[in-house]
């Protein structure tokens, strides 16, 4: 008959000498296995013993089991700790080695900038409106107060297909279409889209470009509201320290009309090389919607008024990302597009 205490001692000794998980697992099976484990075997003849001895042996066997289990757990913890302790040496890698290429493509920088502009204006309640790129003379010019022979037509030299069909020179036709569709103000819309003018390609302008125009028609809007909207937009896109100024200008579809400038981000308006010592960067045009243009959109100028503005998405992207040549946006050189 084997003494439970001796058995325990033997097990503890074996556990203390074990150096791997596998050895411990073998010891566990050897002593604690349900079928042929040595502790179980202790109890194999227990049925023949008198009840008093049976109780003593049962208790001793349980104690042995607990002691062995505790020793196993302890030794396991020691082995784990030891293994984790030298991870720094055994599994060290060169963390300066670069990761593999992600293999992702890019979204075009103009899409990104357009979306940023849309987000800012959507936060003010403006909604995106779209319209056709091939327009009629009426929507592109006449509805905007630019009748045939008007001297301002020079500024919008356009590509024609027939005497009445042309590529839109601005997204303003979408404003007319939106007014006609919505009919009753309030109208707060933005009109992103491609436009075309018959200017030969150069570093600062292209015969094709993209605009975002905005239009607000409501009751009692003011030049101050227009300035505030532009300032909110510019500060949201370029930072709170930017300022906006409006300068009188002329467009047939607004009265009064303005150009709007943004303070130079480098010199903050003092004048530097990047703003050609002007302190300001020209961004776009704006103004209070001409009463005749409201009428052409089916809106009664006695009851409502409005303001509108427009600028090139490329221009905004150039200012934001220091792009010096507008042609890069449409050349589709991946070395450029992958920078954004």
């Amino acid at each position, binding site marked *: 008959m084997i003494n439970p205490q001796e058995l325990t001692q033997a097990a503890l000794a074996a556990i203390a000498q074990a150096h791997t998980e596998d050895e411990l697992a073998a010891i566990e099976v050897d002593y604690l296995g349900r079928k042929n484990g040595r502790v179980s075997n202790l109890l194999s003849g227990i049925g023949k013993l008198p009840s008093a001895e049976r109780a003593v042996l049962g208790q001793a066997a349980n104690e042995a089991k607990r002691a062995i289990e505790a020793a196993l757990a302890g030794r396991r913890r020691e082995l784990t700790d030891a293994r984790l302790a030298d991870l720094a040496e055994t599994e060290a890698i060169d963390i300066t080695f670069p990761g593999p290429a992600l293999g992702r493509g890019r*979204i075009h920088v103009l899409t990104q900038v357009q979306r940023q502009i849309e987000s800012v204006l959507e936060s003010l309640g403006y*909604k995106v409106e779209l319209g056709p790129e091939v327009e009629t003379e009426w929507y592109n010019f006449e509805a905007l107060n630019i009748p045939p022979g008007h001297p301002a037509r020079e500024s919008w030299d356009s590509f024609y297909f027939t005497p009445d069909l042309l*590529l839109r020179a601005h997204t303003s036709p979408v404003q007319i279409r939106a007014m006609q569709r919505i009919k009753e103000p309030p109208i707060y819309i933005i009109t992103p889209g491609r436009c075309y003018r018959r200017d030969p390609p150069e570093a600062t302008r292209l015969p094709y470009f993209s605009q975002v125009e905005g239009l607000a028609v409501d009751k*009692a809007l*003011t030049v101050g509201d227009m300035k505030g909207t532009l300032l909110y937009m510019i500060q949201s896109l370029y930072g709170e320290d930017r300022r906006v100024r409006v300068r009188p200008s*002329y467009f047939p579809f607004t009265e009064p009309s303005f150009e709007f400038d943004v303070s130079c981000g480098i010199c903050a308006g003092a004048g530097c090389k990047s703003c050609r010592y002007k302190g300001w960067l020209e961004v776009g045009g704006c103004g209070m919607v001409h009463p005749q243009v409201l009428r052409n959109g089916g809106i009664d100028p006695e009851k409502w008024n409005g303001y509108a503005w427009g600028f090139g998405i490329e221009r905004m992207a150039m200012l934001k990302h220091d792009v010096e040549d507008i042609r890069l946006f*449409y050349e589709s*050189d991946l070395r450029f597009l992958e920078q954004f």
Partner: protein
Amino acid sequence: MKISYEWLGDFVDLNGVTPKEAADVLTRLGVEVESLTAVDLSEIIVGRVIEQVKHPKSRTPLWIHQVDLGDRTEQIIAGAPNAVPGSLVPVALPGTTVPNGKLVKDLNIAGFSAKGMLCSAEELMLGEDHSGILILDAGKPGDPLTTVIPNQAVMDAEVTSNRPDCMGHMGVARELAAGLDRPMKVDFMPAFTGKADPPGRDLIDVSIDDPDLCSRYIGGAITGVKAGPSPKWIQRRLRACGVRPINNIVDITNYVLLEYAQPLHAFDLAKLSGGQVHVRRARAGEKLLCLDGIERELTPDMLVIADADKPVAIAGVIGGEETAVTEATTEVLLESATFNGPSVRQTARAFGLRTEASARFEKGLPAELALAGARRAAALIAELAGGAVHREWADVYPQPQEPVRIRLKPWLVDEVLGVHVPLDDSEAILVRLGFHVRVLGDGEWDVLPPVFRLDVTIPEDLVEEVGRVYGYDRVPPTLPGRRHDKWTPAVPSQGRRLDAARQVLTGAGFTETWNPALVSGRLLEQLRVGARALRVSNALSDDMDTLRTSLLPSLVNVVALNRDRGRTEVKVYEIAAAFLAHVGDKTTQQPEEPLRLGVVADAGTTAESGRKAFYAMKSVLDGCVRELGAPPGTYQRAAAEMFHPGRCAAVFLDARQLGYLGELHPSVLTGANVEGRLVAMEIDLEPVLDAAGVKRAQTLPRFPAIERDLAVVVEEHVAAGALLATIKEAGSDILDSALPFDEYRGAQVPEGHKSVAFALTFRSPERTLTDAEVDEVMAEIKLALQKKHSAGFRT
């Protein structure tokens, strides 16, 4: 337009206002000064040449001058011979930097010392003439040159097309006067009239055929003039504005053009046949030798000035050589007319000739301006060329300019600007700009704009006048807001919805491009996608003469460009409209502009790599459609222009065809100089967006699935899609999914056959399936495949 600061000083007191300050005021008022060139003459002094001798030794001709500088005499050497003894000349002493940047040094030239420099107009930046020394017509030796010629500053300004009055110095000065709140020194309408007999209108007979094209024609007769060079100050001012001096008469017409913005022309009256001026359309075949020496053929849509026989000028554009004023001229007909803007522009465009005159007439000049300009020019001619101006000029003016009166509710100023401008300020501003304001009993204003301001017609125009002088900087920025009782709910924009597809493409390694919509029509023809193309009638060049009917040609060119620049793998896409003209009798309508997704990717060089790329492209499309929220599309074998005939699928969403997907035709790649293979697709996006719905959650399966593979051997022509349809039909409702995953040819598969492997998943939402149940369904599937496709099976 070039604006001389000195000239502005004729009209408004600029004391204490620097050129820079004046430029800033003008910019704030709407005359945008783009650059300012200042010329400081204060270091240059006046000298008088006492003696001039040729340098005895120098090989290049040089002249040695003794120059009286008031308190002393210096020896100065120059290369031009025109500073003869007695001449007054500008002198720069050693150590001075002349305005064009040259530093003057103490020199010794072949034994003769030179203590300074005699300056040309170019060196002083007073013009482009560098042929000789600038000879002064006044000045005292030793005095600063600024006693004769004031410091110069020239602004380059952009005048908006509604303000032709600002295409002259007087108009610009009026703006400046209003901005500075200083009075104008000169009235708009000069008081000058001619006095000589006989009346001018007896000397010339003026007639206008079409008053719509010429609303006024003033012909002023001036006799006994003496043509010759004009005074230095006129020449200097013309040069500053980029106009070349010719003779006093011509210079005066140009001078008044630059001053009043009224173009004028001077004819040699003696050369006008029949003493007639006839403003008429040109006759077919007529020609005119113009002042620039070019003979131009005239067409009947052009307006000309003719004498009894022939055209003598192209109205509003350029005069004729034959009747021009020369040194021999003694009698002048001074033309001051008002020509129709669009007509002048059309003619100028037809000749590709934009003159100072046409640039002004194009904008539409007021007829009242013609008289002011004529009087100013006549006065100058009388003063500077010694002529006798005849009284009662010919002045054909059938419909005098109607004054426009505007009813202004003066509180409109505050309402529109969003800032309070006191009524007195508003009124004062309008008056400074030349408006007459009468306050009516009800508080409204009756406003009469000055005759030269045809652009002001409605109350909002007056608000602008007040606003720009009051200063828009003084309008505080605000955000609009009032209680709205009507609104439209927010919906994501089309662009934002399409970003879901952009995300898929980005993740799959595709980069977005924006390519020009104008492409070469010839290229579209070559690719046989030009049938419904819209051609530009006034293209800039033939590589941008047509609107694209497909995004793919641009994308193929993008691949070619990036390959050229060393990129091996190119995967690009674009989301943009294609343009399809209507056919038949609707060709003049706006075209269809389907919004498309075009995608192009490298497909390696082998048939096998092309096949794989084709399936990868399908995954990209399926991914996009799925992320856009639409049900999956289906594919049918198809043939399409630009695509490989054996590797092209038409894509459908329900019954609607979205477009094509496939390998590009080898000839397309050859045409674009691209080697290897490309796989592409072009899809209409609007139907996909229309079909989009909200994704609904599916209950997660509670019971395990049983998976089976099935290798189906069929003849080559049988499509996996057809097998899949049969499997699904036969699979009963416990077939959860079926997916072809491999295609095999070779051992165990007969010639002309292929083996297509499917992964089948069986599952019931109600219980755990048994193998026996699945075996039963598998048997049915096999039976159906055998029946329908004569399929065999590999184990």
